[in-house]
């Protein structure tokens, strides 16, 4: 997450004046975590995996082997982007095997956290492709 260092310093000053142990800021590009460590406030890098776990995100994995495409070949824009909302069954990306495409579908109504595989990367069955946060529709499954 790219944040203005002056902003981080200001937040750290404010945090140091409190008894709050951890301050975590989440954005579409990642997470900033500030931790009280004795008399200083430390900024910690948060890896994408921790990031996902923290948000109780789910990972949509590759349904097969192929080349991951973040968009349909006819489209100019990626099917899924951080923050984009999708209904269950809508495509979040595609797997290409020769001329055949398989959809990487949203397993439920969700908001995309991040696309984990690179456009054009060869992936195997089960490779994490897209991190999503399910939307609670209030319906019992």
């Amino acid at each position, binding site marked *: 997450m790219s944040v203005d260092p002056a902003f981080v310093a200001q937040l750290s000053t404010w945090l140091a004046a409190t008894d709050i142990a951890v301050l975590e800021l989440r954005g579409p590009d990642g997470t900033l975590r500030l931790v009280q460590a004795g008399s200083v406030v430390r900024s910690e890098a948060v890896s994408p995996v921790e990031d996902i776990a923290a948000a109780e995100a789910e990972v949509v994995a590759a349904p097969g082997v192929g080349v991951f495409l973040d968009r*349909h*070949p*006819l*489209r*100019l824009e990626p099917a899924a982007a951080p923050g984009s909302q999708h*209904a269950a*069954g*809508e*495509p979040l990306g*595609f797997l*290409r*095997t*020769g*001329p*055949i*495409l*398989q*959809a990487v579908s949203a397993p439920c109504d969700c908001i995309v956290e991040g696309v984990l595989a690179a456009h054009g990367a060869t992936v195997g069955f089960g490779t994490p492709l897209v991190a999503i946060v399910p939307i609670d529709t209030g319906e019992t499954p």
Partner: protein
Amino acid sequence: MIEIVAGAALATVQDLGRVGALNLGVGVAGAMDPMALAAGNILLGNEEGAAAIEIPVFPFTVRFTEPTRFAVTGTDCAPALDGKAVPPWFACRAQAGQSLTLSVPGPSAWRATRAYLCVAGGIDVPVVLGSRSTQMRGAFGGHEGRPLQTGDLVPTHAADRAGPDVGLVPPVFDLPLDVDGVPAVRVLPAAEYDAFTPQAQASLWSCAWKITPQSDRYGFRLAGDELKPRVPLELRSHGIVPGVIQVPHGGQPIIQMRDAQPSGGYPKIGVVIEADLWRLGQAPPGSRIRFAPCTWDEALDAAAGNRRWLDKARRIAGLQHRAGEGGR
């Protein structure tokens, strides 16, 4: 059945065309993009020539009266089933009562104009002279011999069939063709090619021809350099086929398309090879097209290339179909 809910302007039932009836004065009709039609049918496990609905004007909405497997190929018109996005060039399944809306094509990696709504088992209209295509001049074939209208119920045949939800990469990506960055089609010199001036012959190959708004299933009127014959030409009407590039007295060429009349008398400077008619059939009015010179052997190779693409798609999609058996 498929109920036409909205926007049926100029949508017609088409298959691969009514070949073999030109001697009766009956044109071929058929899909303007036969590759998209065949690909949609391959995705659904149909015969390649099963009839589908060709849609040139958007938005277009249908409602499925029964569970139906379908695929929308051709131009990317952002298909949505009850508002939920489904990918283009994909086999999908609709529940009874669901509506499919095709929107005006937006920016795309492939500028194309026509979509094909293919259904498992094909559109089940009567076969006339060996084809289900709509013959507009004769007002027969297709759905009651006319374009579809809002409220029409178009019959389908055993459309609720099991199969894998897979898609195909459109052939334009595997079979690209352009000249100097302009989409191109390959052209054979035709009978009167030598009757045109050297300048006209050079222009045929060098001009980026503009497809004017006066272009439809009958023919594409082009704008560009004036093509002049060496001496004024007068010909008796003779048989012509889709792809023929005629030059009327004004010197601006016309390419005869699927609904062309089967005869004409304008001099012919060239003919777009059959293997490239699908590219031309998708070229949007207002866009430009280049003609690439081609030999008879190259034209046959191009046809074989299309065949190979379809065979490969059918083979791999067929594997998926077998793997998907026992599914929905």
